[in-house]
């Protein structure tokens, strides 16, 4: 049994893996290039939706099998999980998008405008039809990163901040969770650009993530509490990390305004951009190369799929392959 493991990268993949390893009695050191945990991780800009059934619309079934335990995992390790489900709506002219979404997904209820009003009074009268995914959940990603970090510190995990180490130069068992920064070592990894907005809009109260469908500009809004909303996110086949375009903001703000006109008066708190690391099938992988285990390709599913990936990696380390079924679901 391994006693010490080095993890490179303190994003959502690194911290969930550390949590799983500590639970198995392994001592852990985490190396993070940034001085502040989370400052340069793409999980900083995550939606924090634990929505495997909704994600199935544009992803393969594995996202559901690997992701449906995520809400329980995060509930076990943080106090942040809100289990109010997700609501999917579309404007009248895009009603066929709702049919398409329903045809591609499962585990939801068709609801009418009265039921939408019961769930979200502020959306009363705005949509005739919707889909309610009751078992889905959401959390605040930045708070989740902070909570995992502090509980890992309490459990004796060492954090080496501002330390840009090359995993290949570390000895012993190493887990590489650098995300897109590991691209030069992982041949087929690519970046998919995403831009998001943080709005303050006390005039609107929402209780769950809302997805508003559109043939070209699908939008989600996740309530963060205290009148804050995360609005996202663009999906662009580009590895550009640092440029938020006017068009993207125009689209996100236009859609938010279409969801509820009060967003027109919202304060823009933050605009963010980063790239999601993805493999060609847009599914994550745990791979081993000598003493280095790599967890990568979490794509747009960092908070949803990192618990399952962390368990696979931790099992690989502990050599007790109790999650074999999950592991075999992956073709490397």
């Amino acid at each position, binding site marked *: 049994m391994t006693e010490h493991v080095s993890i490179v990268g303190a994003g959502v993949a690194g911290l969930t893996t550390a949590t799983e390893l500590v639970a198995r009695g392994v001592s852990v050191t985490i190396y993070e290039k940034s001085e502040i945990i989370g400052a340069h991780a793409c999980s900083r800009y995550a939606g924090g939706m634990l929505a495997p059934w909704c994600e199935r619309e*544009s*992803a*393969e079934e594995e996202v559901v099998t690997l992701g449906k335990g995520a809400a329980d995992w995060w509930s076990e390790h943080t106090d942040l999980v809100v289990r109010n489900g997700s609501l999917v709506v579309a404007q009248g002219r895009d009603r066929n998008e709702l049919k*398409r979404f329903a*045809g*591609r997904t499962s585990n939801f209820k068709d609801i009418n405008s009265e039921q939408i009003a019961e769930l979200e009074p502020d959306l009363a009268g705005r949509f005739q039809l919707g889909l309610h995914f009751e078992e889905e959940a959401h959390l605040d990603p930045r708070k989740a990163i902070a909570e995992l970090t502090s509980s890992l510190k309490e459990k004796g995990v060492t954090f080496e901040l501002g330390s840009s180490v090359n995993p290949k130069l570390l000895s012993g068992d190493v887990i590489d969770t650098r995300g897109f920064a590991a691209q030069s070592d992982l041949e087929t990894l*690519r*970046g998919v*650009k995403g831009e998001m907005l943080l709005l303050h809009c006390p005039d609107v109260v929402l209780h769950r993530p809302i997805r508003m469908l559109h*043939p*070209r500009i699908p939008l989600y809004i996740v309530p963060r509490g205290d009148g804050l909303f995360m609005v996202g996110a663009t999906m*662009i*086949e*580009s*590895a*550009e990390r640092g*440029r938020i*375009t006017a*068009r993207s903001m125009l689209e996100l703000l236009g859609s938010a305004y279409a969801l509820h006109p009060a967003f027109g008066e919202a304060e823009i708190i933050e605009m963010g951009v980063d790239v999601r690391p*993805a*493999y*060609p*099938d*847009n*599914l994550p992988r745990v791979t081993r190369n000598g003493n280095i285990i790599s967890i990568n390709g979490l794509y747009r599913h960092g908070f949803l799929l990192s618990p399952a990936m962390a368990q696979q990696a931790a099992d690989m380390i502990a050599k007790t392959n109790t999650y074999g079924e999950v592991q075999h679901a992956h073709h490397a």
Partner: protein
Amino acid sequence: MPTFYGTEVQNPLLLGTAQYPSPAILADAVHQAEVDVVTVSLRRESGNDRAGQDFWKLIQDLNVKVLPNTAGCHSVKEAVTTAHMAREIFGTPWIKLEVIGEEDTLQPNVFELVEAAHILTEDGFQVFPYTTEDLIVAGKLLDAGCEVIMPWGAPIGSGRGLENITALKTMRAHLPDVPLVVDAGIGLPSHAAQAMELGFDAVLLNTAVAKAGDPAQMAKAFSSAVASGRDAYNAGPMEPRDMASPSTPVMGKAFLS
């Protein structure tokens, strides 16, 4: 088989590469349907330093002909700049020229389209213009040096099929020797077959395959449909008539009118 600017293409189904659940599923669709030509957008992906290259490399790895496009361009200047970048990245003079005129219908701005086509053909590009079914515009595009015309079937992504069959037939009749491609608006394989039955040389589509439940299976369905439609056109379809025309002899039976 359709020939574009001297290059013969085996499969008259041309496929867009956007909106698939993943690049792996896109590759599967292209291979299973034995597609020969794919179109790829660059405008939004390129960023400041051509940051879309990971995806473009995946496209190049498909080992098919790439028809880069100027999707997302709203002016002559944008389209011309994007075309130049496309030529450098993909090393091809082919460019699908798209100049969007209206955000809601995504219909082409045919005035700017003709202007951009002039500039690009003079610069050595082989332009595939995305246009409407308007015959005068098609003529202007040919004057500008285009050797392919790509009229829409219906607005991009609408899946409505061929909305103006008469105009498409007219275009085919007026331009018997120009390769014609129905581009956009196709929702079902039957729409694609219909375009081929009218004598069009090829069909270009994206959403109908990318957003299908099983994109690879849908791509195969489209591939068979365009093959059937082309065969039907080549075989010389019958002309419809108003009266029934029994295929068995009616001699000796009472004739009731």
